[in-house]
């Protein structure tokens, strides 16, 4: 078992606390089948360092895990890690989680770039991402009122701490996914073809049962020739249904 990064410095009143979904991503990435897929895709000695982008880093536990265990998962330790989150408090928290995890790991760890405060992958140069990871706000629940985002995304003027309303808003951002829990995920899926590297890009997206995962996978396969979507990790079987699953999205050239 690879070590889980420490997040003990974070106040989880306004940043998503690592939970079953987060751990399912860690387990999936480090599973023998997935790490052998990743190694065969990225371990080519003459290839350039892959860029790992995590969208919605939250505490940073997932990106820190991928960064710190790069050699074990990807078969190389020269990869680059970059993250985004809509919540500026999560950006600060995740940055610290990753720096700490990399310090603990020494030379087995990768190169850490930064976390940017942004919407999904909208600020990322097209086709530059080799491995994209997204644990979205996937719960079918009303989306928060984004008109308050600027106000709530920073400490209130002259204050040292956030307000209760602010914390509730920031936590809503981490789980509320609107109709079918798919509003944010659908926007991410739309960006994936432009974001991924044309040859070796691959994305991992978490879905829950209410997201209608079979339908989602079918839609991805309809993007065009070569697009593949397969479930590569799951947890919490309930009456034959997987509660959570990780879908791998990639393109084959055949």
């Amino acid at each position, binding site marked *: 078992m690879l070590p889980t990064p420490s997040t003990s410095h974070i106040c989880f009143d306004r940043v998503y606390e690592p939970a079953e979904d987060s751990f399912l991503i860690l387990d999936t990435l480090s599973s023998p089948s997935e790490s052998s897929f990743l190694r065969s895709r990225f371990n080519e000695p003459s290839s*350039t360092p892959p860029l790992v982008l995590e969208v919605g880093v939250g505490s940073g536990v997932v990106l820190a895990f991928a960064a710190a265990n790069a050699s074990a998962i990807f078969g190389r330790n*020269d990869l680059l890690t970059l993250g985004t989150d*809509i919540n500026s408090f999560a950006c600060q928290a995740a*940055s610290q989680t990753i720096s700490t995890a990399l310090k603990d790991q020494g030379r087995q760890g990768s190169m850490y770039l930064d976390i940017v405060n942004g919407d999904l992958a909208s600020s990322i140069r097209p086709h530059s991402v080799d491995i994209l990871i997204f644990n979205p706000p996937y719960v079918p629940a009303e989306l928060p009122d984004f008109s308050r985002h600027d106000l709530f995304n920073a400490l209130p003027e002259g204050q040292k701490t956030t307000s209760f309303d602010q914390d509730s808003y920031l936590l809503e951002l981490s789980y509320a996914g609107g109709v079918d829990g798919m509003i944010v995920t659908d926007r991410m899926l739309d960006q994936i073809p432009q974001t991924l590297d044309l040859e070796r890009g691959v994305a991992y997206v978490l879905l829950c049962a209410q997201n209608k995962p079979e339908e989602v996978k079918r839609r991805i396969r309809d993007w065009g020739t070569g697009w593949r979507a397969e479930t590569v990790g799951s947890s919490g079987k309930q009456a034959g249904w997987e509660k959570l699953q990780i879908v791998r999205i990639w393109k084959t050239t055949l």
Partner: protein
Amino acid sequence: MKLLTLNFLTCAIKSCKSTPASFPLHPRDAELEIVEADLNILFLKNILPRLMWDELRVIGSELGLPELPSTPPTREDLVEPSTTAIAAPTSDGTRDAGEEEEEEIPTQTAKDLHRVLLETCIKEGKLVCGNCGHEYKVLEGVANFLLPGHLV
């Protein structure tokens, strides 16, 4: 925020992305800080083909950094000639930079490149799109790419 990160960022406005002028973003009123990081020679050698060198030179000169050479260094430029190691695969077949690093001594060129890409950070300031002129703020090292219309 590290200068290497700018190699992977662009204006967040959709219609800008397809125009060459939206990359790179131009730092303005930037307060820089040096944050020391370990030098990984294998990484530096491998990243060369991914660097948008001309754009990096533009950013460097806009920040008032010492001028970067007009062409990117080669892999050979980064390692002292006498120390080049034969990359030996480890027992589990993975490549481990750790073993190479002990043998390979980085040149001044490698150290300079490392300093520019990974140790020179924008602490406060703005990043400006060359196409639409939009200014993205950098606060405490975190760039803010959120646009008002984004979330709806």
